[in-house]
């Protein structure tokens, strides 16, 4: 299994508070992704990174920001959490984007915003 660690695995917080989720990889892959998974919507891309300090928006980026200061770490921040951001968040990594390279996933973070 790919070495991907997401932390925390579970979090409950209140509306309006900042939240940061961390994804750590040991594979030295260039590309990292953040998805959210919601019933009936499958996985939707929030942001992705194609290198240190290089990031881009995905399909559902509003209300989220990301940072990547080291190859191994990709942080997802909710500046002011809202109830609509209650979801399961997955980090993924790949050697390249799309193409023939599959993405490998972490075990997810379950975030509840009350």
């Amino acid at each position: 299994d790919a070495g991907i660690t997401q932390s925390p695995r579970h979090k409950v917080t209140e509306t309006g508070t900042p939240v940061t989720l961390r994804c750590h990889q040991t594979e030295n892959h260039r590309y990292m992704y953040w998805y959210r998974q919601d019933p009936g919507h499958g996985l939707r891309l929030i942001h992705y990174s194609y290198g240190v300090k290089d990031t881009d928006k995905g399909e559902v980026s509003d209300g989220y920001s990301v940072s990547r200061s080291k190859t191994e770490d990709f942080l997802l921040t909710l500046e002011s959490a809202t109830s609509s951001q209650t979801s399961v968040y997955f980090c993924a990594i790949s050697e390249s984007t799309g193409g023939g390279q599959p993405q490998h996933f972490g075990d997810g973070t379950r975030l509840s915003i009350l």
Partner: protein
Amino acid sequence: AQSVTQPDIHITVSEGASLELRCNYSYGATPYLFWYVQSPGQGLQLLLKYFSGDTLVQGIKGFEAEFKRSQSSFNLRKPSVHWSDAAEYFCAVGAAGTALIFGKGTTLSVSS
């Protein structure tokens, strides 16, 4: 734009019966196609992938998938389902320079 459709939200099959999960994609060129499986509380695990060449690809856990360009399909099959195959299955399409696009998933239940 790329897109993936999994027409079946939920499928129930009997243990030992055959399985086929449908996936249709939209993409202008030859796509890269993937099937993932997700057990409850877990991340997604890659089952198999298609890049080019032989249109029938073999994956892990006894799964296979067939790429049919004329039908824009990449259906997942298994000859005999086991209770442990109950999970959610996702089809995904990729292209150079973009992240994977996922279908909304099909939940498989296995009855005894």
